[in-house]
């Protein structure tokens, strides 16, 4: 479903974020990407969304080379991928509700469906009493949960979560991971970037380990190994 082929990413200031990374992700997999801060996790995920271009190599999504898509085709790609951004990327001029609803509006869904689904998803992430708050009125953890709600509201084929529990307490962390697992059981592919050792070890799923931009380990039932 997703295939990275010899991907190297060097930022304009010459910092090397990824070096010759190759791997595949199959439909329905649950993959964790681990590595120290600065190892290149976020960069890896940004490439899938075509937020950044690889310096070398290519990224395929369903056999399509992501970086050869025309700009007018990018929205379609992105609607298939639910991304939880490490820095949330919420729209500050919109309420929690409107932020989540926006993804569905973009897709041209009707108001009733939107109203029903948004309410439901916000309840799932435990924000039913923060619906009409603006991002600036929300705590870090609440913002993170809005971001999660937005990533899964439209039932994308893949959920890409960049440190989705970084700002959450253990209770919410557990709930969110359970949620991701349940969504995965229903057939959605999940890619999770994190440096939370406990989560990774408890999951007992596939783990990709990045060290200084290199993919050094790819294990079926991996552990978080401190290098």
């Amino acid at each position: 479903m997703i295939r990275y082929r010899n991907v190297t990413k060097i930022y304009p200031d010459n910092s090397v974020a990824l070096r010759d990374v190759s791997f595949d992700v199959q439909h329905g997999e649950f993959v964790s990407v681990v590595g120290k801060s600065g190892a290149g996790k976020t960069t890896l995920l940004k490439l899938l969304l075509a937020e950044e271009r690889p310096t070398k190599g290519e990224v395929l999504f369903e056999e399509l080379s992501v970086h050869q898509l025309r700009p007018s085709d990018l929205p379609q790609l992105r609607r298939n991928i639910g991304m939880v951004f490490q820095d949330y990327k919420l729209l500050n001029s919109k309420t929690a509700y409107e932020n989540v609803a926006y993804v569905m509006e973009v897709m041209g869904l009707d108001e009733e469906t939107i109203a029903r689904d948004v309410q439901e998803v916000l309840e799932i992430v435990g924000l039913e009493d923060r619906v009409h708050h603006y991002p600036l009125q929300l705590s870090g953890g609440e913002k993170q949960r809005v971001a999660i709600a937005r990533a899964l509201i439209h039932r994308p084929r893949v959920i890409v979560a960049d440190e989705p529990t970084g700002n959450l307490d253990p209770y919410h962390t557990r709930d969110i991971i359970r949620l991701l697992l349940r969504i995965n059981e229903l057939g959605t592919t999940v890619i999770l970037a994190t440096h939370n050792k406990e989560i990774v070890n408890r999951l007992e799923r596939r783990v990709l380990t990045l060290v200084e931009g290199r993919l050094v380990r790819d294990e079926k039932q991996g552990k978080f190994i401190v290098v």
Partner: protein
Amino acid sequence: MMISVKRILRSGWEKFSRDRSSTGAALVVMTVVLFVVSSLFLLQGMSTFLVERLEGGVDVSAYFKDTVSEEEIFEVRSQLLSLQEVKEAEYISREEALRRFVDAYRGQEEILAPLEAIGRNPLYAHLNVKARDPKQYDQIAEFLAGEAFASAIASIDFYDRAPLIERLSLITSGIRGGVLAVSAILSIIAVLVAFNTIRLTIYNSKEEIEIMRLVGASSWFIRGPFLVQGALVGATASFLTLLFLLAIGFFGSKPLYSFSGFDVFAFLLGHFFSLLLLCLAAGIGLGVLSAAIAIRRYLRV
């Protein structure tokens, strides 16, 4: 499709009404721009009026003795019209002359009272002659002063409008040139300021635009609301401008009228719809265009 259009319109309206500070700034700038543009329109109307009035003036008037019959006057008239220099020759009968006189001095008793005291019409029948070229007035006057008409004509008035017209057209063309240059510069500055204000507004939304792109919004879905906001700013600024113009026209009309004979307020009312159209076209055009140009670079993500 329809639902997207509806959402774009609603979202544009929300931007316009929620984003007070940037909408306000753009509105002020845009109103100033439109004010400059419509003032030009007004100036144009006024100078056209003045020139027309001047050109409508009479060059030579020939007053006929009361003994001369209307047929004889018409004979003089047709002779005049056969002259190359003559453009028009209007016949004013004694009654008509009186009527015009009374009309012109309506309400000014000190002038009309003596007329009534006389008890008869003291005015002459006359021909108002207009030259093709105001400079040729003297040829016409000479012709009328000739032997042939000496017995019929009581007096000849001629108005040497040529120097006045020359001076005025020199002034007006000078003013026009200057005004045109100044207003061209002013409009360019105004347009640039408007454009930059809108660009700044959009710059503030740069991050939002990028986020919208990343969650799968199409370019039009993002661009649309900004264009709608620009159009709303242009439309609102148009109405504000017209309101200002009408207010200024209403209060400034009297002094300007007594000075130039130009009724600004009537002109404004008479041209209300063309002015409104002009403002709307300029305002909405500028608003939408600026937004479209400004947003282009942020949609590349």
